[in-house]
């Protein structure tokens, strides 16, 4: 585009553009609203529908009408009462506990590795970073069989270890932390260096406390990843006492196949914590996705 041309040369055109463009612009704007609202509805309706179904009786759930489609005529908590007699509280605890371990583990291990890759010079650094990043290209299903065999050899299947240890470091988190540490001012380190602090003290006392925004972003992704993890828990866990919510949900879908309100109630219980988290931290989610686009 010849943007260097002086504008004055084209001043008649400048006046003309708004005139022929205004009607079109207005039409486009209306069209944009229509499309955006329609898509927003399409995104919300399935969730509203599942919430409504969880509040219906089984009979009402199976006889849809326009009036009761998105809200029941007589909301009932029956489905949730049925849930109370299941191990769902245990599964909820498992999901929360596992999420906490993921978050803490990654906050420390990813941050350490990210810091080393960003600010330290050591032999093999660049090659190692390349190797770590290229694992983003490896679909989890590809390594699931060897991981299952190894965890079995190490007697870690059917335990919290299987749900946490393999996930204590991840390539995306290391990348995120490296990006962050590259942006912090060198003066922060210089001050510590004058005091004669070692790298270890510098990291623990100055770098990590100053990295909290990045650690928070990482924590959000770790939470989302662990809360939704399905394939690996499915393979590693067979005893119900170690089920996380997605496993419990998949199990219920088989056990209560025809009882849609109960199945939807678990879907709601699984989604609500994530939704609350999302609403509180939505800026971070969106920010993180635009930087990375990696879905946990």
């Amino acid at each position, binding site marked *: *585009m*010849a943007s260097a041309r002086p*504008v004055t040369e*084209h001043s008649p*055109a400048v006046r*003309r*553009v708004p005139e022929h463009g205004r009607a079109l612009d207005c039409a486009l*704007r209306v069209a*944009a609203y229509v499309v*955006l609202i329609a898509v*927003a509805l399409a*995104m919300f309706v*399935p969730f509203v*529908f*599942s919430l409504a179904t969880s509040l219906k009786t089984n009979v009402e759930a199976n*006889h*849809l009408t*326009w009036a009761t*489609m998105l809200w029941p005529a007589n909301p009932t908590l029956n489905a949730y009462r049925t849930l109370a007699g299941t191990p769902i509280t245990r599964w909820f605890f498992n999901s929360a506990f596992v999420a906490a371990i993921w978050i803490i583990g990654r906050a420390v*291990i990813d941050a350490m*590795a990210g*810091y*080393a*890759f960003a600010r*330290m*010079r*050591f*032999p093999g650094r660049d090659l190692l970073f390349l*190797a*770590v990043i290229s*694992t983003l290209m*490896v*679909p989890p*299903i*590809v*390594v699931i*069989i*060897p991981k299952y065999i*190894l965890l079995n050899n190490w007697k870690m299947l059917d335990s919290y270890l299987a749900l946490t240890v*393999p996930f204590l*470091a991840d390539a995306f988190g*290391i990348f995120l932390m490296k990006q962050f540490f590259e942006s912090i001012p060198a003066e922060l380190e210089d001050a510590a260096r004058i005091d004669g602090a070692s*790298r*270890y003290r510098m990291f623990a006392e100055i770098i990590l406390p100053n990295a909290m925004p990045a650690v928070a972003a990482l924590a959000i992704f770790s939470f989302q990843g662990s*809360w*939704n993890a*399905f*394939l690996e828990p499915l393979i590693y866990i067979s005893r119900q006492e170690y089920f996380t919510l*997605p496993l419990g*949900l*998949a199990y219920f*879908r088989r056990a209560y196949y025809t009882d849609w309100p109960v199945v*939807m109630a678990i*879907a709601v219980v699984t*989604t609500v914590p*994530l939704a609350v988290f999302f609403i509180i931290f939505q800026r971070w989610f969106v920010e993180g*996705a*635009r930087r990375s*686009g990696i*879905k946990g």
Partner: protein
Amino acid sequence: MASLVATRRRNPIAAEDYLAGWVFVLPALVIFVGFIFGPILYAFWLSFHSWNVVTPEKPFVALDNYRNLVDSDDFRIALRNTIWYSAGVVPAQTATGLILAVLANRKIRGRTFFRTAFYFPSISSSVVISIIFLWLYANNGLINFVLGTLGLPTPRPPWLSNPRGVFQIAFDAFGIHDVSPWLVGPSVALVSIMLMNVWTTTGTMMVIFLAGLQDIPGDVYEAAAVDGATQWRMFRDITLPLLRPVTLFVVTLGLIGTLQVFDQIFVMSEGGPAKTTTTLAWLVYVEGFRKFSMGSASAIAVVLFIITLGLFLVHRRFLGLTGDQ
């Protein structure tokens, strides 16, 4: 070594880093070696061996597992379904993501609201979404109810139980009944899952495109407007070329995601009806954890890995050559 001594004299921290660097990456390295690097090598090794989990022996069978794949109907079907899946979902989610991003990038009210609404399905659990859609697609579910009351036809058997190829349905209308397996197209069941996938991931793609759009400086458009360019020409000649790296990223993400589709298949269709939703990832699971044939499951996994890597490299090269950045 000489440089190390020189560095040490100059800067004690740099010398310390020589060792401390490894200390800092060590915990992550242990996890990566134990759960990614090691398992990748192990998967290759296993694919040349035969193992049924029960017996301790893992005899070497050379290329037998791969040779069996070539002759296997299941593998051919899974490969075809996976290709349909990626070829359908990736362009659709990329296009809808781009369109929504362009729309939401205009100066409109409630931009944050729309961005949030579109993004929410992307962060939800795949199992939750699969179960909700299972209900939406059910015979007496929401979709059939709406179609029915509007007097529109609904598929028989219902969506997720319907093995008929979507192209076959079109051919049938012209009285052509015998077509090659490829021309049958993905089944109604597979297309139902594909649509759900587009619904789920469009928001992620939109957010990434939106970031790319916001990085394009506004004065480029102003200059074009001065030159009398139409909206469409600005989109075609400015927006699209400048978005090329973002598009590369979105398509790469889409390929990685669609080639490994598993959760949805597990919850919604278990590979059926008539194997029309059997994907490569699902086949790895069935061979490995239902038939306990770890060698052939690993061979499928290795093939899937090579396909993913190959597509990524081809795609990068292709866009690299045509790109002018």
